[in-house]
């Protein structure tokens, strides 16, 4: 498992799933559809991403396409990181 994926799974598990079995959450499961996050959850997620990776999430990037599954998040973070690397 990729490091980013593992970190994200752990965060989601500890902060949103609480007692739910995290292994049952697939990387394609929608946080919205599954009722895993509420409106505060989105902000918690963004805060986590910004605190743990050297990236800033722009307003226009606050979309389910970027943030709503583990896979989407991994892709989003990797893209942002590579953009950052290219700029450097």
């Amino acid at each position, binding site marked *: 498992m990729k490091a980013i994926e593992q970190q994200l799974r752990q965060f989601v598990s*500890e*902060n949103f*799933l*609480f*007692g*739910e079995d995290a292994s049952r959450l697939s990387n394609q499961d929608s946080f*919205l559809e599954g*009722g895993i996050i*509420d*409106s*505060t*959850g*989105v*902000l*918690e997620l963004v805060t986590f991403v910004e605190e743990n990776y050297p990236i800033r999430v722009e*307003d*226009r990037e*606050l*979309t*389910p*396409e970027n943030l*709503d599954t583990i896979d989407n998040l991994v892709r989003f973070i990797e893209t942002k990181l590579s953009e950052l690397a290219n700029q450097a």
Partner: protein
Amino acid sequence: MCGIAGIVNDTGSGVDTALLEQMLVEIGHRGPDGSGVYTDSHAGLGHVRLSIIDVGGGRQPMHNEDQTLWVTFNGEIFNYVELMDDLRQKGHRFGSRCDTEVILHAYEEYGEDCVRHFNGQWAFAVWDCRRKKLFASRDRMGVRPFFHARLGREFVFASEIKSLLRHPAAPRAVDRLALDQLFTLWTTIPPRTIFSGIQELPPGCSMTVHDGTTRVWRYWSADFTPPAVAPTIEESMHGLRELLVDATRLRLRSDVKVGAYLSGGLDSSVTAALIKRFTDAPLTTFSVGFEDAQFDETPYQREVAELLRTDHQSIQCTSADIGGVFPEVIRHTEKPILRTAPAPLFLLSRLVHEQGVKVVITGEGADEVLGGYDLFKEAKIRRFWAALPGSKIRPRLLKRLYPYMPNLQAQSDAYLQAFFHVRPQDRESPLFSHIPRFDLTSKLKQFLADDVRVAVGDYDARDEVQSLLPADFANWDTLCQAQYLEATHLLPGYILSSQGDRMAMAHAVEGRFPFLDHRVVEFAARMPPRHKLRGLNEKDVLKRIATDLVPESVRRRPKQPYRAPDATSFFGTADQPLRFNYVEDLLDTARLSAGGLFQPAAVERLVQKARRGRLVGTKDNMALVGILSTQLLVEQFIDSRRPTSGGSSTTRPLNVAEVGALAEV
């Protein structure tokens, strides 16, 4: 306003007077001014009194002229003066000038239909010695509480569950389905309570106990069927104002000083202003202020108090205050709660009591009756959007709804749409308005232990709510449907009980609510919905009639819901952590395992998040308060076989005076 308790014994072998007295001790806080019991071979009635009307003459239990009927009564029949006149003309003679006696004579005259003549807030039981029959009733909206249980050959009832738990045969266990209801609806669905085997008489219902058989029936229910000819806005304004004025006039009937709560919002400002029109006596007003600015409404409260020239008193409530009194609060709610909001009202009623005031008039009920809640607007926008699901503009209206919720304001359009998206299957649901709230609250069930989930099985509280809807429901306007759901469940189950009667009566304070006068309720129910919610302008008709009553700033300010700090009341913030021993004990993993209601690992994670100051979401906060309050209930009422009143500062020895003969009448 008082506390009542009683026992009916099917066999006629007498009732245990000592037990009845113990039951009264449990609710001594409700009636510090006196107490009394009546017993015969088949029944015993008990009463603790808070003297408000006919202070010298209103002792209870009270009997009729020939002592064949006895009543124990908690509450007020506000139109007792008019009823007394009517009944006198029909030949009844009164020995007091007390509303309690009116119940007896009205029962003689009209039988079990007597309650239809009452304008008030009541829970009472009439014992008919000749027929060996108990008749009990609870007011239309559920202002006053009435709990009961059948324990072997005995039927027992009381104002509070803690009295019933004094009975040696009372079960002490948490009802699993009630937990499902609570963690979906914020309240249980009566007759179910959180305690197995203990029932609540639903609002608007009466019951009899006779020959070992209990019969419960509904004598009133809200009807939102519109009249054939819709009133104009002028007619709605005129009618509402007249009724509100009269509802307030009746609620000022008291032989003791009446005060008022001021929240800083429209509703309580209107009721306080109406009171001032009737009386030259100085009015004392009471408010809760918060240390935390996001909850505080002090400037508005002061503005209204200064305008009305009231003697204004307030408390300044901190997070630590809430955490400190929370165990006592739960001893009074007798039900898990998902918000700490009742706690400041517990502190406020203490202030009222210290000031020597026994009665307060408040604006409670206006939001339910006149369409004030954001939930009603949210439902309207969701419907408006569902009609054109592709619209990008329509969901933006949602942001106008919750100006006081920064987390929601920070959402992107994409997420806003995702959160409030109307699922195709929800569009025709009769619970449409409440689906987001019920769905969000249901998420708390993830913390329930596996055993509880197994016990709950396929049961879903939402299905039960749906199965109980009146036949005409589908024909009502969508706002009316939402109002019905709110007035049937959250209002009696939480607002009027956990946040209302139980917090006020903890310190012997009686609340009175002009907006919940049944004439106001019935009039508003038949009003065109646009007079209540015009566009997204809530309580439009009330704002229109309030022009000469309240300051323009209060009339025009956006509605702010009454809220209090939740998780921070128990754990503080990262900068100022708080620590309460009971919180540590009750949320301890071993304790949770032994209790068997919640998943210890899940709660542990929630607690860790709270300790880090990261518990910011609505759902997480509700979960924490819900779990903690459930654990407190279990500790105080189930684990402990001790009398629940032990150690409470409000309990003092009860001096029970017997007013009835022990011999059979």
